[in-house]
C-alpha cells in the first residue's frame, strides 16, 4: 500500500493496463463481448458514421470531378458492375445446369417436384471502414430491423465477403473471411462432386485442402460454397492459386485468391 502511494503514476498506469487486459481477456473468451452497452455505442456510431461517410464520399467525388475523372469513374463502376453480374451469372448458370440435370433425374425416379430456392437478400451501404487498419472489418447500415442475424453471410458482386459478427438496430459488424479462422466447405464449379475445406491463413488469403486425394483440382479452378456449414451454397469464394500434394496428410492442399477485393468495398448484400 505504501509503495502505491509513493508511486502514484506507475500505480495508475499498471491499473489502467490491468483493466484493459481484463477487458481483452473477457472479450476473447466471449467472442466480442456483445451486450446492450456495446450495442448502444454501435447504434450511435452507425448514425454518426453514416452521415459523415456521406460527406466524405461527396468530398471525394467532388475532388475526383475537379480533375475531370468523374465521368471516367462512373464508366469504370458501370463496367465493373456489369462484369460482376456476368461472373455471377456464369457461376449460377453452371450450378443451375448441373443441379437441373440431377433434379430431373430425381424427379423422374421419385416423381419429385422441384422447388425454387432463391436467396433472401438485404443490400447495405458500408458506413465505416478504416483505411489505417490492417484488419478487414467494417460496419453496414442495416441490422436487426431488416431481419439480419449474427452469422448471416455477406456477399458483393464478386463473391463471398464474410459473415455478420454482431448486429443491432440499424447497424451490423462484418468480419471478412480472411480475418477469421473458421472453416468453409466448398466445391469446384468445374466438377461439383469435388469437395474441400478452406479457411483464412497467415498471408491474408485463403488456404485449405481437397477431401479426395485423387481430386483433379488445378490452378484457376473456381470455388463456391457447398452449403455445408455456415454459408449457403453457390457463393463464389475465389480461384485456386496453387495446388500442392502433401505426402504426410495424403491430401491435395490449395491456396486460393479471394474473389473479393476487401479494400474496395462500398456496397454489400446480406443473405438471410
Amino acid at each position, binding site marked *: 500500500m505504501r509503495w502505491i502511494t509513493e508511486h502514484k*503514476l506507475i500505480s*495508475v*498506469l499498471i491499473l*489502467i*493496463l490491468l*483493466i*484493459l*487486459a481484463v*477487458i*481483452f*481477456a473477457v*472479450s*476473447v473468451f466471449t467472442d*466480442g*463481448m456483445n451486450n446492450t452497452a*456495446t450495442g448502444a*455505442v*454501435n447504434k450511435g*456510431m452507425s448514425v*454518426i*458514421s*453514416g*452521415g*459523415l*461517410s456521406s*460527406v*466524405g*464520399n*461527396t*468530398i*471525394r467525388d467532388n*475532388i475526383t470531378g475537379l480533375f475531370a475523372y468523374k465521368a471516367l469513374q462512373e464508366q469504370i463502376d458501370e463496367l465493373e458492375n456489369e462484369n460482376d453480374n456476368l461472373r455471377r451469372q456464369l457461376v449460377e448458370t453452371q450450378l443451375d445446369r448441373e443441379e437441373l440435370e440431377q433434379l430431373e433425374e430425381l424427379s423422374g425416379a421419385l416423381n419429385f417436384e422441384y422447388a425454387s430456392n432463391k436467396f433472401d437478400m438485404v443490400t447495405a451501404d458500408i*458506413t*465505416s*471502414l*478504416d*483505411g*489505417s*487498419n*490492417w*484488419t478487414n*472489418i*467494417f*460496419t453496414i447500415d442495416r441490422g436487426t430491423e431488416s431481419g439480419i442475424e449474427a452469422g448471416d453471410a455477406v456477399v458483393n458482386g464478386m463473391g463471398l465477403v464474410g459473415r455478420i*459478427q454482431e448486429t443491432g438496430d440499424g447497424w451490423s*459488424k462484418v*468480419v471478412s473471411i*480472411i*480475418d*477469421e*479462422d473458421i472453416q468453409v466447405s466448398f466445391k469446384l464449379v468445374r466438377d461439383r462432386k469435388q469437395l474441400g475445406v478452406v*479457411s*483464412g*491463413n*497467415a*498471408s*491474408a488469403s485463403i488456404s485449405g485442402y481437397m477431401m479426395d486425394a485423387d481430386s483433379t483440382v488445378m490452378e484457376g479452378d473456381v470455388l463456391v460454397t457447398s452449403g455445408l456449414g455456415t454459408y449457403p451454397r453457390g457463393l463464389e469464394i475465389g480461384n485456386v492459386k496453387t495446388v500442392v500434394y502433401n505426402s504426410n496428410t495424403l491430401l491435395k492442399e490449395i491456396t486460393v485468391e479471394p474473389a473479393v477485393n476487401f*479494400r*474496395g468495398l462500398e456496397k454489400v448484400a446480406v443473405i438471410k
Partner: protein
Amino acid sequence: MKYWKAGIAFLVAFLIQTSLLNGISIGGYTPNLLLCLVIVFSFLYEEDMYGVVYGAVFGVLYDVCYNYIIGPTPIALVLVAIFILLVREYANIENVINLWFVSVVSMVGYYLIHWGLCRIGGNPVGIVYALRDLPGIGIYSLAVVTIIYFILIRKVVRHRKDRYFR
C-alpha cells in the same frame, strides 16, 4: 492544454477516422488519427497523461465499434503512450527530428502489438500482411503528426523538468 480540449480533439479524431477521412484517403490509406494524437500529446504533455487516458478510453470505443474483439487498440495505444513518456525524458521535445524518430518507433510498435493481440484473439493473418500497409499509413500519419505538433508546440508551457529550462 485543458483536459476537455484534448478530449474534444480525440473525440473528433475518433468520429472521422472511419468515415470522413476516407474521403481524403491516398491510395486507400488514411492516417491513424488516434495514434497520431497519442504520439503528439504524450510527446508534448507529460504530467496530464492525455495519451494514456484518452488512448485507453477511445481505444476501447474504437474496438467496440470497429474490431471483432475489445482490447488490442487501447492496450497498444496505452503502451505507445507509456513508451513516449519514458523516451521524452531524454529527448528535446522542441526538435522535430526527435518527434519523427519517436513517431516511427511508436507506429511500428503499435502495429506489432495490435497484430499480436489480434492474433491471440483468433485472427489468422500473419505479421507480413499486417505490416504490409505500414509504410503508406506511416508516411501519411507522420505528416499528420508533424502538422499537429507544429500547431500545439506553440502553446506548450515550459516546465522545470525540461532540460532546456532556464
